[in-house]
Each structure stands twice: as C-alpha cells, then as structure tokens.
C-alpha cells in the first residue's frame, strides 16, 4: 500500500476523461432534447369529425300499416269513410293524356309506379267497393297488413326471394333456435305509389392518414 504514494499517481488518464466528458455532454444534450421536446412526439392528427349518429340508425325509411297497428299509433289516415261515401266507388278523373288527376285531398301521393306510366289507377291495387281493403289482379281482397301478397301478385320472383330472405331487409337472428328473425315488408322500404328508391346522401368517405389518394376518374382522366 505504502509503495504507491499519492504524489506518483497521475490521476485518471486523459483518454478516460475525454470519454466521460463526451458521454456527459451527450446525455445532457439528450435530456435537454427530451425536456424541450425538440423532435417532438407525434404531431396530433387533424380532427376527423365523428360520423352523424343518424347514419348508424337501423330503422327502415318507411313504416308499414302493420307497424302502426303494432305501435298503437294514430290510424285516422286509413279511416277512408270519414270522407268517402260507403258502397259508392269514388270517381277517377283524368287529363287529356289519360294521366290520373290526384285530388287535392290526396295531394301527398305522388304516382310513379312503373316506368311505363300505365299503372296509375287507384283501383289496380285498392278495392273500389271497400276502400279499407286491397285488391289483387286475380280478385283476392287483402287487408292492409297483408300488402306483401298484393305486391307478390305482380312481382312473383321478387316475392319468392323475399320469402326466402334473399330480397329485402332482415335483422335479428340467423340462428332461429337462438332468436327470431325480423323480416321487413315491401312497404317498409318502397313507397307503394312510387316504389323506386330515392337517392340519398352518402356517408363520408375514408380519411386516409396522408390525405385522399387522387385518382383519375372517368370524367377527369385523359
């Protein structure tokens, strides 16, 4: 012990000092960088607005007569004989092109069933002797909540698809042992007076991380 006197010790070698000093500077710089958040955490992304809850709604766009009965709602619109006379068929009026003139009392009805314009008679589907019933072309009188059968009397293949569950909206259980399937009627989606689907606003498209991909479309291409 005593052979090495303090005077002979040269202290830590210069190289060690250099390495330690460099490390120290490095760590201090790193610490400062993190503290000041120099290169930063990820910049917050642009806010994407939450989608309108109306777009998540699974309700159908129309309610059928059967729905109204089930919900015990006001059925006065279907009480034809508050205005019409019983046992007397209402007279239909046409313009010079044989187009049906809709009376003002029924001005909410827009006729547009079929593109040929010939299916515009009320009594193609309504029973003229009893306005509270529907009438198929083969002479069957149907209640309002039996309307799919009326539609099926002309649209046979679509009716078959609907019965098999392949046309129209369904919900509930695919596994009938675990629960019931709910099948919507024709008039839950189609307006019987103008059955074609109306256009609707589409839900917002995707917001990619790096802005929308611009692609030539059919119109703007070339």
């Amino acid at each position: 012990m005593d052979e090495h006197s303090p005077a002979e010790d040269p202290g830590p070698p210069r190289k060690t000092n250099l390495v330690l000093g460099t490390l120290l500077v490095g760590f201090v710089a790193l610490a400062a960088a993190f503290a000041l958040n120099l290169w930063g955490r990820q910049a917050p992304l642009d806010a994407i607005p939450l989608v309108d809850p109306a777009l998540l709604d699974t309700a159908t766009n129309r309610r059928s007569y059967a729905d109204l009965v089930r919900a015990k709602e006001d059925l006065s619109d279907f009480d034809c004989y508050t205005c019409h006379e019983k046992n007397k068929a209402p007279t239909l009026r046409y313009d010079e092109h044989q187009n049906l003139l809709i009376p003002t009392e029924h001005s909410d009805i827009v006729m547009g069933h079929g593109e040929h314009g010939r299916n515009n008679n009320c009594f193609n589907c309504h029973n003229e002797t009893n306005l509270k019933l529907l009438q198929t072309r083969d002479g069957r009188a149907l209640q309002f909540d039996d309307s799919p059968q009326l539609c099926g009397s002309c649209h046979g293949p679509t009716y078959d698809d609907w019965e098999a569950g392949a046309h129209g909206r369904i919900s509930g259980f695919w596994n009938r042992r675990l629960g019931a399937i709910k099948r919507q009627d024709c008039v839950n989606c189609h307006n019987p007076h103008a059955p074609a689907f109306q256009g609707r606003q589409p839900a917002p498209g995707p917001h990619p991380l790096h802005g929308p991909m611009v692609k030539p479309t059919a119109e703007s291409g070339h």
Partner: protein
Amino acid sequence: MSHSDFPPLQGEPAPAAGMNRRSFLRTSAVLTTGLAALASSLRPLLELEDYTSVEQFMQKYYKELTPAEMAKVLKRIENEVEKQYGIRPQVRDLRPMDGVEFVYALNLTRCIGCRKCVHACVQENNQSRNPEIQYIRVLRMPHGSFDLDQSEHNYAPATVPEKGYFYMPVQCQQCRNPPCVKVCPVHATWQETDGITVIDYNWCIGCRYCEAACPYWARHFNFTKPSIPKERLNPEMSYLGNQPRHQGVMEKCHFCIQRTRAGRYPACLEVCPAGARKFGNILDPNSEVSYILRTKRVFIQLKEELGTSPRFFYYFDV
C-alpha cells in the same frame, strides 16, 4: 480468533490510493450529472406503462389458455377498459358452433353505395376514429367494367346511387385458403372451424406480413394508439372480436364474431338500407345464403384466380 487475523476487505477504500478532495468532487459531479441525464433520457419508456401491463405481457397464446386462465384474461380486459373509458364492458370468449360455416353474399344489383355499412361496422367493432380504421371499403366502378384499378373510393356526390355506376363493398373475404394465415410468423392469426379467420391481438407482433399477403386490402394496422370516444364505445365485446386493440397490432373484419357466434346477424347487414347484404350458415340448406347460392346468378368470388376461395360471394338479381 482476533480481528487482525483477516486481511483487509477488498472493497474498503484505501484512503491514500489516488483519491484526493479535488478528484472526489470531480468524479461525483460527473457521476451525478451523468446519472440524472441518463434517467431523463430514458423517460419516454415510462409512457409505455400506459398500454402494457405485466399480465398482458406474460399472457399465453389464445389456444393454450385454460378456461380458468381465459376467465382471468377477460376480467383483466374488462378492468382495463373500465379504467380507460369509464364503462364496464362485457367481454366474452365465444367459440364456434358445431355444424356452422358462415358465408356472406352481397347483391351488387341492390347496393346503392351509401357507405352506411362502413360506419355501422366502425361503431360495432370499436375501430379507431382518428386515425381512421375501416374494415369495409366501397368501390365505385362504371357500369360494364370490372377494373378494380380504375375503381374509386373517394366518391362524394350529392346523392347516391349515381347513373352509370355500380358499387362494390370489399371487406375480409374469410378465405378458405387464406394467404394471411400462411405468412404469419407467430401463428397469431388462424382459421376457425366456422370459417372466420381470427387474430389473437395479444399474440400479434405487428410485422404486417399478413397485410402484404392479403389481396383484398382487408387487414389494417394500428399505427397509433386507437382513439375511440367514450360515448361511441360498444361495451359488448369478445376476445377475438371487438375488444379495444393496442398500438402495433393488426385487425380486420371478423364477421362481427361477438354477434354472429351468438346467433345474430352482423352489424353491416342490419344497417344496409337496400337489403343488399345476406349472411348465414351455408351448411343449413334452408338459410338465405344457401338459397342465394342455389338460385341466384352468383357472379364472383373476388380475385377468384388467386385460389384464395373466399367465403364472400357477390351476386346479381337478374
């Protein structure tokens, strides 16, 4: 035995060996500053604590979990979700049913391109809202063509459907021969007996091989921690389905496993205003999908030539 019999301990400071007041102060100053700087430079690691608990890190592979362990895992997920979102979810581990193979059929004649399915899916399956992760992409293509390269994702007209176009939603096709399963290096994704290809989010290492292998762009990667607003969280969860994911894992459509394995229809089907989406058990001859595949003009399995054999069919009415 006296004390002096022992040699001096090695660690005892030798007061005279090269240590004087100046060098001691210098060394300790360097050490203190250095340690403080080291600690502070490692600080970002502390933020990891947010999303990896020890139990989660040590958790076993899905297929190796015993029922008791699975119950524990489900409890842990419920606790973590409650801590993060303030809502107590119900997390279940639903298993495939016997005699069931799921098939999806989509009617291209009926689809109007309204994208409601996209958002119903996001809502049902707790996908990240920002950045956006969506399992369904709706492609718009001109009538009379079938060129996927020319398809448009970002159409935004005032109303749909537009004249002269048709719409084709694409999501996971639940292939019988799934390329994504083959490439996974850790077996974190596999095909279940009911035909659903699932992901063990806890086992996924985020290498994104499956994303590269999938010809349908069906797999999505969580580049950041998913952000789901509390009020939009769906508390009915399943382990392989819509439990909230973590940063750095893959996810994809799983036919709403939390609904379909409980006998219900998927969310995208129930919201479709045109009734274009059909789903069911192909092994049941009375199911809607059996009827469709039997009687309809089933047009394609998408990219049929790749031999992936999707369980997702597109068909036409006429």
